[in-house]
């Protein structure tokens, strides 16, 4: 699941709430749906913090280090499946659903 920020002056409706321009929400898009929403300029991915757990440098971070990146669902899945990274536990701001 990724966290997204709305860039266009539109209201986005999810299962739990509605969000306006500038607001953030979490959702599990398919890679294709995510790509469509990013390409249209509607959404941007809010960067997450990741820890490098494999043996290679990932996004400039050495093994054991953390880095912040806005990874697409597909890119993150491939890196997790390859044993390169894991999400670092960092509390994100609450969405409307969590408030």
């Amino acid at each position, binding site marked *: 699941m990724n966290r997204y920020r709305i860039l266009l002056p539109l209201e986005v409706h999810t299962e739990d709430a509605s969000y306006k321009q500038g607001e953030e929400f979490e959702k599990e898009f398919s*890679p294709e749906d995510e790509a469509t929403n990013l390409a249209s300029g509607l959404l941007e991915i809010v960067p997450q913090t990741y820890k490098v757990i*494999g043996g290679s440098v990932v996004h400039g971070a050495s093994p054991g280090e953390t880095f912040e990146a806005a990874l697409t669902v597909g890119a993150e899945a491939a890196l997790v499946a390859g044993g390169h990274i894991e999400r670092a536990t960092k509390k994100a701001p609450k969405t409307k659903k969590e408030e």
Partner: protein
Amino acid sequence: MAIFALTDALIIVNGVTLSDHGNNVSIEDSRDALDITAFGATSKAVAKGLGDAKITVKFLQDFAAGKVHATLAPLIASTTGIVVEVRPTSAGRSPTNPAALMTGLLMTYNMLDGGVGEVTEINAEFVNSAQAGMTYPTA
């Protein structure tokens, strides 16, 4: 002008730096040649059509965690484009060290290739999957 010798290329696949396992890289940025020759012409004429791009890397195979196979195996099964970046040297991007940057799909991955006693060199072929095609950022 200095002739460039390739000794320290930077290869990043989906954010993972794999330069220390690569020993050959090829970057292709092409356009379809459309034949626009008409009756009466005395020479063939062509126009440029759709662009295409491809990055092919030869890797020394490594099955250790977080290395070559761990990076490429998830990508051959994936239908999502990932970013591949190659630079002439491992230094930062600059006008004299431009990157070749492409969002692509891994279309060919031969996990093992070699004979008895040989080093296993494998090819990974990434084909463009985004409208931007190949770009050459310098910063």
